[in-house]
């Protein structure tokens, strides 16, 4: 019987991983998960001026089974939290989460002593990949969040960060 062949000479998985990461990053399909005010800025990001379809991400899927990224846009309530967790669990791997807005990051302006209804941040429920602060964040901030997520997937930024001239 022959000794097993060292397959690393023949099969290169690294390039396939890169190809998969590039294709996933350029076609992130978000779940339609607008909860509150940030949802309107998410819709505006899908609109003609800001246009996230440049990044392949305009295909909002209503079903979690068909979505890659859950953009949590709005406040998570204690009544809503089980539903959010169910949606996250129903998404197929690989999946990512963008926490859009202050409420999704830490409860936002609704945290006060004696608060009884708000979950202080979606990362209390499941891991978050990108945090986009703002109340609400501008659509450009959401696009920057998507670019940051793309960098997390591929290791490279699509466009360099623009620094204004001094």
């Amino acid at each position, binding site marked *: 019987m022959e000794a097993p062949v060292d397959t690393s000479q023949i099969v290169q998985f690294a390039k396939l991983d890169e190809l998969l990461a590039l294709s996933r990053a350029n076609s992130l399909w978000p779940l339609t998960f607008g909860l509150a005010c940030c949802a309107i800025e998410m819709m505006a990001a899908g609109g003609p001026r800001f246009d996230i379809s440049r990044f392949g991400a305009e295909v909002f899927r209503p079903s979690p089974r068909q979505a890659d990224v859950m953009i949590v846009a709005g406040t998570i309530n*204690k*009544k809503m939290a089980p539903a959010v967790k169910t949606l996250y669990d129903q998404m197929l791997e690989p999946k990512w989460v963008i926490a859009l807005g202050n409420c999704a990051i830490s409860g936002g302006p609704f945290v006060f002593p*004696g*608060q*009884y*209804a708000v979950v202080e941040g979606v990362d209390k429920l499941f891991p978050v990949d990108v945090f986009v602060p703002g109340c609400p964040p501008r659509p450009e901030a959401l696009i920057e969040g998507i670019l940051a997520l793309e960098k997390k997937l591929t290791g490279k930024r699509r466009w360099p960060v623009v620094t204004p001239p001094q």
Partner: protein
Amino acid sequence: MIPSLEQLSARLADLAGAMPATATSGPAPVPPRSPVQPADFAAKGYHLDVTVAPGAVDSAAGILDQHGFALDTITGVDWIAQNEMEVIYDYFHAASPLRIVIRTRVPRDHPELPTISAVFPGANWHEREAHDFFGLRFLGHPDLSPFLLPEDATYHPLRKDFSA
């Protein structure tokens, strides 16, 4: 029919007489008042302020319904210092600028009063919300289960002695 303030005052005054005087122990945030009181709209935002006994809120709603008013909202206020809860009914009219306020007080440890949802079906939701936040019990209401709070909530968050 377009209602007139005098006509309404007269009909509501028949109901208002049974209200006991408001408790004056402790800091009284509002001065005691006579049951049917015209109000300065520019200062308060309503025209008539009627205080009734808790048992008369449905009759008051019936009178206003006959005159074509609509229910604006039902507000609960927890006067913990006076051991009472106030329930304020706001009414508006689509064909008249008149704004009528009906208010009543119930004891805090026995916060019960009749429902007006038979007269105004819209009151169903307002009363359910008032029950959620204050524990006010509207007798005859079809379903006082938690509404804005989680289904298993047993707390009433807008009470002044509520702590999360």
